[in-house]
Every structure is written in C-alpha cells, then in structure tokens.
C-alpha cells in the first residue's frame, strides 16, 4: 500500500488500524508477544513523541516519555478493555497523565482506563471490538471535518496543552467565544456518532 515517494520521507509511521491495534494488544496481553509490542511501538511511539514535543517537552525527554508510555502499555495490556475506548484512547490517556505528572509536576486526577477495566469483563466481546473501532473511525472523521476555527481551539487544548484562558489570549478572542467553539465542536462530534450509541 505504501508508495515509494511516501517511504522516502522521514520515518512515516504506518496509518493506525484499530482492529489491528486491538489485536496487537490482545497478543501482548495473552502471550507477552515481543513482535506485537514492536509493531505497536512503531505505530504509536513516534506520534506520542511528537505529541509531547508539541506540548513543550524537549526532544530527549519526549523520547524517554514516549518509550515509557509504550512500556506501560506492555506491562498493563492484560488490563486493557475495549469498553473504555480503543487502544489509541488508552495510549493517549497514558501519555497525557505522564505529561501532567512529569512536566506540570501535578497529580493527574484522570483515571487511566485500566482502572475501570477491573470492574468489567476482561475478555471483550468481538462485537464490542468492532464497535469501538467504528466509533474511533467516526470520531477521527468528525474531527477532520470540523470547521477550521473549531479545529484550531481543539488542537490548542489537546496538542499544545493550553487552557481555555490561554487559548483566548493566543487567538485574541473573548473567553466565552473559545468556550462556545469548544462546546460546538464537541456537539458536532457527538452528533456524528449518535446513531452508533
């Protein structure tokens, strides 16, 4: 699938396939499969590193934290539950909490999905896996289709790590405008997945 000109660019990470990622996590969980871990690492590690760099982390620290994120996945894969979001969601929450802990030096009060997984069945039903992949695909499409001004505030929050007040200052907008853009973007995303609920 990957054409030659793409492969000449700087280390493109393969596009994320949700069912493949869930399968990799299952292989890691059941057999502590190093090959599966390697594949997951190749797919997410470089993106987690960029995520941290965008949030103001220096490249060397971002490298360490990206590896640590994936190592936590490796060690905790048995607790993964697709009921609490896709593999991507899980990895995102771990990277986010590491950033809060190491860079902000605050306690991340956000629970990692694994904590909730303990309450539920450890074996996801095949249907649940498919549905979660479908949900994540829809969310990805909905985010991609957001009008530029809404997408901008969402990216500044998630990727640059700015509070609503900081976004307002950065864009020269009233705080109320930033909040209403965030609200509308969220409503659009929810509307895009309403039929799957």
């Amino acid at each position: 699938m990957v054409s030659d000109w793409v492969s000449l660019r700087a280390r493109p990470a393969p596009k994320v396939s949700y069912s493949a990622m869930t399968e990799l996590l299952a292989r890691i969980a059941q057999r502590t499969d190093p090959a599966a871990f390697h594949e997951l690492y190749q797919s997410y590690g470089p993106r987690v590193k960029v995520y941290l760099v965008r949030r103001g982390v220096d490249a060397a620290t971002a490298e360490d934290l990206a590896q640590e994120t994936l190592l936590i996945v490796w060690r905790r894969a048995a607790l993964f539950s697709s009921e609490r979001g896709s593999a991507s969601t899980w990895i995102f929450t771990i990277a986010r909490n590491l950033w809060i802990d190491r860079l902000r030096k605050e306690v991340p009060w956000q629970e990692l999905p694994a904590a909730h997984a303990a309450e539920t069945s450890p074996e996801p039903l095949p249907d649940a896996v498919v549905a979660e992949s479908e949900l994540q695909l829809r969310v990805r499409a909905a985010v991609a289709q957001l009008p530029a001004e809404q997408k901008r505030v969402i990216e500044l929050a998630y990727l640059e790590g700015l509070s609503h007040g900081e976004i307002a200052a950065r864009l020269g907008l009233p705080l109320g405008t930033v909040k209403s853009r965030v609200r509308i973007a969220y409503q659009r995303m929810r509307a895009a997945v309403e039929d799957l609920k």
Partner: protein
Amino acid sequence: MTITHHLGSETLLSFAAGTLPSALSAVAGAHIAMCRHCRDELVWCERIGAALLEGLPAMPLADAEPAVASLREAGPPDLARLGGNASNPILRLARDDFADIAWRRIGIGLWHRPLPLKGQGALQLIKAAPGAAVPEHSHGGGELTLILRGAMSDTTGRYVAGDVADLDEEIEHTPIADAGEGCLCAIANEVPTRFHSLLARLLQPWHGL
C-alpha cells in the same frame, strides 16, 4: 444516587486534554468517579484526543529493543503516581466518611477546610448547617462544586449528593444549604472567589474563601 447536574462539555474536554486547573480537575475526577454519564462522556473526549494523536506526523524514535531493555532495568512503572481516584483527596475523605476533619468556622453555620494541592486553583471542603447561606459571590474564573452530603439550592437549581455545579465567571449566586440536613461539598476555584458585600470582602482574608 440520582445525579442530574453534570459537568459541562467544555470542562470535560479540558479534563480530557489535561489542561483543566489542578483544583478543578480534582473535583471533576471525584464527580466522574460517581457518575456513569460523565464517565462515558469523558471517554468521548478522550477519543477526540486519540484521533488528534493519530493525526500527528511521526518523529524519529529510537528502536524499541534497547529502550525496553533499559526501562526493564528501571523496574516496573509506578502507576500509583499516575494519579486517578486512589490519590484523590476528596474521594479519600469520602471513604472515611469525612471523619476527623479539622473544620474552621467561617460564618454563621458555615465551616471550611482547605485541601492544599499542587498546581493551579484552590480546593476546599465547605460544611453548611441547614438553611445556612454562602455570601453572594461571583468568580474570577471557573468554579466547580461537588455535593458530597445533603443538598443545596441556588438560582441555577437544587443540587443533591453526587451533583456538580459547573459555573463559569458569568454567574453570581448565593447557594443555600437544605433545611433538612444541611450540605457538605467540595469547591474548586480557578482563582479566589469575589464576595459582594463589604463585610464579606473584609472577612475574606481570614476566611481564605
């Protein structure tokens, strides 16, 4: 517990992005631990984060094997440090049924207890006797109030245990504790609260409200 007052979507989204001030995050996290609805909404917000993460370009990263080998030597990751409910002071005090709290009186039928924590914002518990009122105030920034025992009412509605009042800087209000059993709540403010009456403003330095 029937929860009818939830977190606003912009608060949930900030919480998911990891940008909500620390004090507000502690209250949001405690509410989410009690509220299935907000837990589900939060996963949607985290899916947005995951979608944005997936859309990022790749950056060269060292090969997995040596990295994993060196991290293995460092021992297992300390997941307790990665936060969540286990370290949330509000949930910890709730588990002890709010026993042995050194309350400080701040008014007629009104007590408080600051909960110091790292990061931005102020967090405190407030205990109000039946019918007691918190002086009219507005907020310089966001305020989250989580009801833990009893109930309270203000112009925006009646709040019972588990409910969260997610108010922004536009709102001015005078919450009143229920006549029956009063109210115990956790309040997080992004910036210190402003009171309107002169007396309340004069008392503010001592109250730490």
